[in-house]
């Protein structure tokens, strides 16, 4: 689990294809440096992000999550981000109610033109989670499983049920 000396937060970012993913690309094109603690998963739209994805990311050892998409009114699919916002409006308080720190699950609107905002946002998410420390609570439950510690990568065939191929 976490290294005793330095804790490096593990952030999973779920980005929409049209705005934030392109914004993160733009940060790259502009060679804007940021901390490397993030792994990006691209989906067509924030509206297509099921809360299960976020829970799964925590199960797989994420210390924090960022969900980011187009600004309201700019959704490539017109209303995807509005529906997403509705979801997070109930899902985030639910997680907080269960004792998950709000900084561990964050949301942003970052357009394809906002490379700078992407850098600022991801850095600040990483910093915030760094302050919180590792998500030990979740890691503890994970450790209880029959397959032993849930940390780390296991070949997918073990966890996705039978592979009837």
């Amino acid at each position, binding site marked *: 689990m976490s290294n005793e000396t330095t804790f*490096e937060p*593990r952030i*999973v970012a779920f980005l929409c294809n049209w705005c934030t993913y*392109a914004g*993160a*690309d733009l*940060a*790259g*094109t502009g*060679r*804007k*440096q*940021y901390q*490397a*603690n993030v*792994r*990006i*998963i*691209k*989906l*067509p*739209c924030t*509206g*297509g*992000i*099921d809360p299960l*994805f976020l829970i*799964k*990311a925590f199960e*797989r*050892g*994420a210390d924090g999550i960022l969900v980011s998409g187009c600004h309201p*009114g*700019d*959704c*490539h*699919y*017109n*209303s*995807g981000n509005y*529906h*997403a916002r509705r*979801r997070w409006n109930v899902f985030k308080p639910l997680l907080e109610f269960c004792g998950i720190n709000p900084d561990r699950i964050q949301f942003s609107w970052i357009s394809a033109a906002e490379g700078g905002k992407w*850098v600022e946002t991801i850095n600040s998410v990483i910093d915030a989670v760094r302050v919180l420390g590792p998500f030990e609570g979740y890691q503890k439950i994970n450790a209880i499983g029959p397959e032993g510690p849930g940390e*780390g*990568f*296991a*070949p*997918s*065939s073990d*966890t*996705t049920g039978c*592979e009837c*191929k």
Partner: protein
Amino acid sequence: MGKKVGVFVCHCGTNISATVDVEKVAEEAKKKYPGVSYATTYKYMCSDPGQKLLRDKIKEEGLTGVVVAACSPKMHERTFRNAAVKTGLNPYQVEVSNIREQCSWVHQDKAVGTEKSIDLVRMMTEKTRKDTSLDAIKVPVTKRALVIGGGIAGIQAALDIADGGNEVILVEKDASIGGHMAQLSETFPTLDCSQCILTPRMVEVAQHENIKLYTWSQVESVGGYIGNFDVKIRKKARAVDLDLCTGCSSCWQVCPSKKIKSEFDTELGNRTAIYIPFPQAIPSKPVIDKEHCLLYRDARKKNIPPEDSKVCRKCYDVCPIAPVKAIDYAQEDEIVEVKVGAIVVATGYKELPNNVYGEYGKGKYQDVITGLQFERLASASGPTEGEIRRPSDGKEPEIIVFIQCVGSRDPAKGCSYCSKTCCMYTAKHAMLYKHKVHHGHAFVFYIDIRCAGKNYEEFSLRAIEEEGATYLRGRVSRIYKKGEKLIVLGADTLTGSQVEIEADMVVLASAMKAQDDAEVVARTLSIQYDKDRFFSELHPKLRPVESSNAGIFLAGACQGPKDIPETVAQASGAAAKVMALLSSDELEREPVVAKVDRLPPPVFSTCIGCFYCQRVCPYGAIEQEDIKARDGSVIKTVARVNEGLCQGCGLCAATCRSKSVELAGFSDEQVYAEINSVEFN
């Protein structure tokens, strides 16, 4: 049998390899990732030899899945997929791991970059292992185009498409086509008469056998998708039968309501209640303004059908058409339904009205006018027949002040952008003024002079050097009336002095704004718009005429302020795009569409038919399907995706509680695999 995945790590010259140990990434992949049977690196994967390497190895190694770790998939995903197709591998078995934009370019430390790349490649490998082969969706194309807006942009687009041999439906909300360009006096930088160059094109539209023109009409709704749009057009009742009317002008000559402010003349002139907007109108047939017409007013007051009112029927009486007159008071709106394959949006702009600036009198001074009003004053067909005279008393202004950037570049008034045309038309105005009022003096207040365009700089210099307009760099802080004069207080920032000018007339170079109903239009068409409500192009540089909705193209000032040459160029560009689209019989679409599962009886589908998916779908792509027993009785009603309508956002999949809907290319298995393999070092 498991999938055999090949991993190709690109150096991108040194763009990647400088901060990522590409060899190590490939090595790790080969050593540790399940399913990876081959891994290598190459200098430039996107180059011809790079693509050849990819093709060769797919064949040699019998790869059934490919991960290319390179630049953003937005750059070369298509390149690699196309390369794979040539080997017979399904293109959707090829994925790109973004280790340049989102890794090597943003992290300096090579160890860190390498570790992250290893993670990213692993995640994409896991996803690839769950990739399924997908086939592009083929949809037929309706070979007809719709052009919305009959200004110069719409006219140009319609003519180009029609000349290409396609049917065009041109919809214009006003009584005549022509738009703003018809209102202009002379055009920069050549000073040729706007109407002289425009009206022949308008006539061409009217006479073109491939163009069907609907004026006094609006697009009510747009359904469907690229190649197959279903459009409803509302033909507003104009109280005149266009088929019968010959445009003989008898009716508007006898109309007793003569003092109605003419919209075409920017309220500087008058028109009648039954009217054509301007003499060269197309169609040259009138419309009744029901707001002001005595008969309709009477009918509204008495709450009776207009045809029963007896107040004034002069236009009807005078109409020479027999036996059925062309005037039809009882005419009602009509909805026309058409199918088109492509749409060009050319809805134009709106000029910022002159009542926005309190410091310029908020519109209370008659002699403070907008640029467009000046155009009407300077136009030979305008209310003063081209003489520059003050609206208040008809006197010739001897001192005239032009103020640039009124609204534009002023975030306080809601337009942070530059309207682009004003520097040029103000220079033109100053010239036209000097041509007409030789002894007069023109002052121009400006922030910057932006005249970038062919012969533009020379044109603006002419206004200064040859025509003697006094250009003052600074803003006007205040206009107030003193007797018959307008006192203009401003700053000359080049000399650092205050300027006070006793002017006879002031012309505001008002900003070009998006149309008031731009949002409504955008929603009707499901296209995006920007913060200023101008419609968004798909890519600011490389896809400037495509909207965010496939098959819908943009032309002219509805996409952002533009002058005539630029508008015409964009319109022709949009027309070319439309023709390319209409030239094929079938279209291929990315098969990234949702699908509701189907299973053998007795389950049929895990869908329980709550239809949340149907409610959230932005495209109406979810339909209800009855699953029936042999006897025809309904066993259950479940959701089904219309692939033609689905745009692949995945809203339905995320909304479905039982995960009975999945998005191809981002299936549950694929996303799960990706998340599940997140491992940090």
